[in-house]
């Protein structure tokens, strides 16, 4: 779960990290009041869950409250990569001497938290990593012991942080590690961490992503979820306990198991790509899905107007194919899809499941024995209807 910039920075503040004294506005008038209160130059920043808002015109400097109001008016409601801007952060302008990059993330290969930091902050870390990988200091943290104080000295020294800032940088590093750790974050990033003309450090921009699997113990953070950037269908699926991701193709996929669901997508593309045909979604109904869940999943798939065919690929292991077949029939009767459905049931009780489907004598239903056959038939069905 992503936090907005303002949410991330307010969270940093809870862990003792200095941030600008800005506030969030949802209207130009509010922006005016905040800018007035702050006084001087302010920055008006769009709060959306996409990168590149600066290039899109979502970040603007204002010399006074009147200008802040005008900027807010132009940014609020702006469309950035398909997302409407609902909030702007009004931050006081900072006296930037130097921009530093500082982040803590999960290094999955090492199975440890990884601190990445560089005196060349401001730019995207992936960009920096491509251009000047040696400018990034990387330090693992022992997940059980946590961050040692001596590591802070090592990092500050290795990155070339001026000595005058070691102490305050160390405090921020401790604070960020505590924040990352206490919030079950996958990423806690300050970019830029600014050294001001007075030699102070200030987290001017921030990004935090929380591990979805840990939200059960993060009630305060869970409340802050902003689903405005999420497609309706994905939100509905999430609420129904189904993993669904909308894609651009024409073949709706309903599969049990994440790996097999990806594979099924891949097969539709393998056989359909030359005709511009591919998967309309990722969907994993999980093990032992009920007829109600199958129906809900089917409705979600069909809510996508691009879908020209639905492909069921169920490998019955513990799941019994006859039960899934009944679920499909129930769902079919409830949802009444007007697109063809390719059904491939394999594994436990596959014969019985296929018999149930064929005996139901439903038009638009196409059987398949192997995944290859199923994918090929789904592609053919889409071609027919195009």
């Amino acid at each position: 779960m992503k936090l907005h910039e303002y949410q991330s920075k307010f969270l940093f503040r809870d862990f003792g990290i200095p941030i600008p004294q800005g506030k969030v506005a949802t209207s130009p008038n509010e922006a005016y009041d905040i800018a007035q209160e702050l006084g001087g130059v302010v920055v008006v920043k769009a709060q959306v869950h996409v990168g590149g808002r600066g290039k899109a015109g979502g970040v603007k400097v204002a010399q006074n409250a009147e200008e802040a109001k005008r900027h807010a008016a132009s940014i609020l409601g702006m469309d950035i990569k398909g997302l409407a801007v609902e909030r702007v952060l009004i931050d006081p302008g900072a006296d930037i001497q130097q921009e530093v990059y500082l982040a803590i993330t999960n290094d999955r290969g090492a199975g440890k938290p990884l601190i990445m930091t560089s005196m060349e902050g401001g730019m995207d870390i992936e960009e920096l990593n491509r251009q000047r990988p040696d400018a990034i200091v990387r330090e693992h943290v022992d997940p059980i012991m946590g961050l040692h104080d001596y590591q802070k000295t090592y990092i500050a020294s290795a990155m070339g942080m001026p000595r005058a800032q070691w102490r305050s940088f160390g405090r921020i590093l401790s604070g960020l590690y505590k924040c990352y750790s206490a919030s079950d974050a996958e990423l806690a990033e300050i970019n830029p961490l600014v050294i001001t003309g007075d030699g102070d450090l200030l987290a001017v921009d921030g990004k935090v992503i929380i591990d979805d699997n840990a939200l059960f113990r993060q009630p305060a953070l869970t409340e802050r979820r902003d689903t405005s950037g999420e497609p309706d269908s994905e939100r509905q699926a999430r609420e129904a306990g189904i993993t669904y991701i909308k894609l651009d193709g024409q073949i709706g996929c309903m599969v049990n198991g994440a790996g097999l669901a990806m594979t099924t997508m891949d097969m539709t593309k393998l056989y359909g790509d030359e005709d511009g045909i591919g998967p309309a979604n990722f969907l994993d109904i999980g093990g032992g899905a009920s007829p109600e869940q199958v129906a809900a999943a089917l409705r979600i798939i069909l809510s996508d107007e691009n879908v020209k065919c639905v492909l069921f690929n169920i490998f019955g292991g513990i799941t019994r194919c006859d039960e899934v077949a009944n679920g499909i029939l129930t769902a079919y009767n409830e949802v009444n899809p007007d697109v063809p459905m390719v059904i491939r049931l394999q594994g436990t009780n596959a014969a019985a499941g296929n018999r149930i489907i064929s005996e139901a004598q439903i038009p638009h239903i196409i059987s398949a024995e192997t995944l290859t056959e199923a994918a090929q038939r789904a592609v053919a069905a889409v071609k027919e209807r195009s």
Partner: protein
Amino acid sequence: MSILIDRTARVLVQGITGRQGGFHAKLMMEYGTDVVGGVTPGKGGEWFEGKPVFDTMRMAVATTNADVSLVTVPARFAADAIMEAADAGIKLVICLTEHIPVSDMMKVVAFCQRRGTRLIGPNCPGVMTPGQAKIGIIPAMVATPGNVGVVSKSGTLTYEVGFAMKNHGIGISTIVGIGGDPVIGTTFVDVLEMFENDPETEKVALLGEIGGSAEIVAADYIKNAMTKPVAAFIAGRSAPPGKRMGHAGAIVDGGEGSAEEKIMALEAAGARVAANPEEIPGLLA
């Protein structure tokens, strides 16, 4: 014994009185696995299908002399359950549980390493040595005994491939589901190494997916240290970047972890990579 388990494995099921734990414990016993008991805190003294239930792993191990544990408890209890097994002296812990926070797993993996306990998973279907024992949820029907080792991040995709192999008359030495989470106890390389050293394994099938770089590291191992042929499939060629495809670990992030780079690395290492998992039996023939 092929690798990791054979019919002599003495298995405890943590969460045996739960719906999932009990269901699979029964199927394991039907398959011939020696399930010697289970653990559910607060239910010590009960019985499950003729096997004793204990309050703690310490008491369970002391009584049954078990050497493998299967963790089937809910996500918020799973980290503690794995460490409990390790502390009780269990040297092989297999964890099925999905949705364990990554921060828990980072601690648990470090903990198991220090204890010398091998952890398989979490979020995996388990381990099966066909004809001998299965520990986990892999269906009995997807494999027959043979000489191909299978290692996979995924559940049903593995069944699909196993089943296709069976239909082509190809048997399996051991199936190891390592799980699709970002941080796991046992990696592709760990299992490849075991297969390389296992006299009963002649070839290996590797089923990977997008996300992380475990397959790249595996390719490196295949290139430098493996003599046995490897056939592979990588799921997620059609997955968009930045989206988590069901498995917590299945995400192409910052240009890293794409199917293309994994396929290229594996092919460069000499593995034969299938575009369609149903081609795997052909590549192994």
